[in-house]
């Protein structure tokens, strides 16, 4: 156990070091800009993974919490003289309270029913973004959202935004990795395997599910607020059902329950449209195919697949070494 934990710390520190050093080697600002969005999507994917990968509860309404974070932040800072940092805190708080309140009835549902209910919730929120034109600007969006700032230091260029977003993302990743090895993480896994068995063992499954749903909404709303303040313009199109499916795809192809998997999934899905500009319209077909194929043939996702093939190769090498000897 100790060795495993030490290895985990080592891997995380290595990952964090690479993340912090990357901007030094990247002079071109375009790629840095893509990395900012990878950071935001990683936050969102990790948030969904806490719910889906750890606790086994699906949500097709994650884009709604992302959107709520973005819109609450955007409206508070453009319509009222609210400081962006305060807006971020208020946005995350509001989304969490909403998630906590709807969490009780919604998480009573299971499997397909839970998927449909969260999908319905997501679409209701999306309709509200579109129709409350006086507040949100409707389909044409909300512009002029101010950047975050620390004293004289303004987060208005890609390099600064990169550090802002990735500090937050690394923090959330560390907490999530920690969570998986805590008592709460084990309880969530127990719920994932068998909710009844978990309850028999004394896990307050209902409260636990609502809490992780709330945490997931909290992180998603922070991502939304960061998104609004870095990109300074938001419109409902970014927060629809398609984006919820995209987040689901990130988590599935990376690997359920794997935090680095979420990063990998977010990276692939953020880069894919950048590289496949010619095939712009193909992305949705590719996402659908990936969801099906990965679920059928690689249920542990790419990270699981990589670990598996390393193991197989290692055993083969070992085997042939023994044969030779």
């Amino acid at each position: 156990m100790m060795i495993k934990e030490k290895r985990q710390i080592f891997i995380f520190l290595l990952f964090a070091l690479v993340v912090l050093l990357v901007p030094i080697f990247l002079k071109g600002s375009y790629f840095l800009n893509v990395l900012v969005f990878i950071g935001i999507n990683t936050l969102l994917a990790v948030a969904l993974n806490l719910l889906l990968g750890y606790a086994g509860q699906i949500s097709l309404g994650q884009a709604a919490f992302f959107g709520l974070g973005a819109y609450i932040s955007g409206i508070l800072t453009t319509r009222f003289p609210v400081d962006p940092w305060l807006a971020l805190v208020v946005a995350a708080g509001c989304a969490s309270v909403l998630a906590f309140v709807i969490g009780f009835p919604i998480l009573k549902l299971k499997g397909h029913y839970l998927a449909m209910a969260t999908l319905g919730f997501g679409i209701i929120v999306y309709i509200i973004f579109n129709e409350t034109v006086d507040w949100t600007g409707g389909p044409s969006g909300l512009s002029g959202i101010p950047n975050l700032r620390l004293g004289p230091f303004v987060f208005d260029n890609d390099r600064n935004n990169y550090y802002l977003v990735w500090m937050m993302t690394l923090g959330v990743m560390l907490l999530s990795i920690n969570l998986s090895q805590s008592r709460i993480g084990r309880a969530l896994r127990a719920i994932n395997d068998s909710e009844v068995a978990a309850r028999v063992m004394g896990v307050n499954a209902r409260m636990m599910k609502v809490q992780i749903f709330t945490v997931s909404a909290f992180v998603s709303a922070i991502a939304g607020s960061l998104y609004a303040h870095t990109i300074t313009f938001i419109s409902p199109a970014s927060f629809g059902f398609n984006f919820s499916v995209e987040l689901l795809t990130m988590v599935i192809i990376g690997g359920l329950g794997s935090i680095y998997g979420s990063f990998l999934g977010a990276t692939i899905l953020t880069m894919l449209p950048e590289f496949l500009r010619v095939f712009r319209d193909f992305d949705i077909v590719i996402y659908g195919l990936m969801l099906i194929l990965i679920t059928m043939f690689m249920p542990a996702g790419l990270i699981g697949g990589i670990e598996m093939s390393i193991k197989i190769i290692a055993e083969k090498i070992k085997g042939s070494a023994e044969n030779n000897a």
Partner: protein
Amino acid sequence: MDNPSQLVQYILTGLSNGAIYALIGFGFAIIHNATGILNFAQGEFVMLGGMFTIFILSFLNIPLPMAIVLAIAFSTLVGILFERLAIRPLKNVKPLSLVIITIGASIFIRGAAMLIWGKDTHALPAFSGNEPLYVYGATIMPQHLWIFGITILIIIANKLFFSYSILGKAMRACAYNAYAASLVGIDVKIMVLLSFVVSAAIGSMAGIIIAPLTMTSYDVGIMLGIKGFCAVIIGGMSSGLGTVLGGLLLGLLESLGAGYISASYKDAFAFIILLLILFIRPEGLFKQKETQRV
């Protein structure tokens, strides 16, 4: 238009939309009862029905009824391929995986439809002209009558099939207990495939009869699918009267809500009803509560 006739108009629109929701709901119930899967791609069969008909008509110079039959055949083929390629190969999977696979299939079919047919909205010609009829000051399109007629026919055919035909009875046996059904010589795999066939056929028919009224495009499947799901949830996951009532109720509430409260929130009403039903009576409005075995 005075108020009573406006009310009649809303009710008519509501009922005809509701009939469509009920048919889509049937599709959900038939697959769910045979396999335990809630097929998220159900709405895509509805989209395929309308889109296939329109494109068969534009490529082949054949009469509408033949185009409709061909379109249903093609949609059913998609249903068969879906079952054979993505559902049957699975063994001992968690419900979560099934949810994800049907979601994947739904966006795959939608994306493929977009690539093949483009993003434009298309109209199917009405089955028998656009000369409106007037009832109590409200206008009825002949297409509304087609919708009511075909829906009633499908409901009766569905009832007869599941109550009297040997195949229908075998499918019901599988729904009740697949293992016991296999012991008395029923081929469960064939019944599962058949459930996809029936469900795709009914779904695409629904898509075809609504297309002349509402237009259609590659992305209509998701909204129609969820509303059909809402109907079948109200009906307690049966392909019977409960779901018909559920669909009509949903159609009426939606149409009256859009007419008297706010048209821009029309879709939101359906989803609020869906959430309320799921929260308060997930076993349906017309069903006795059952205990869950674990």
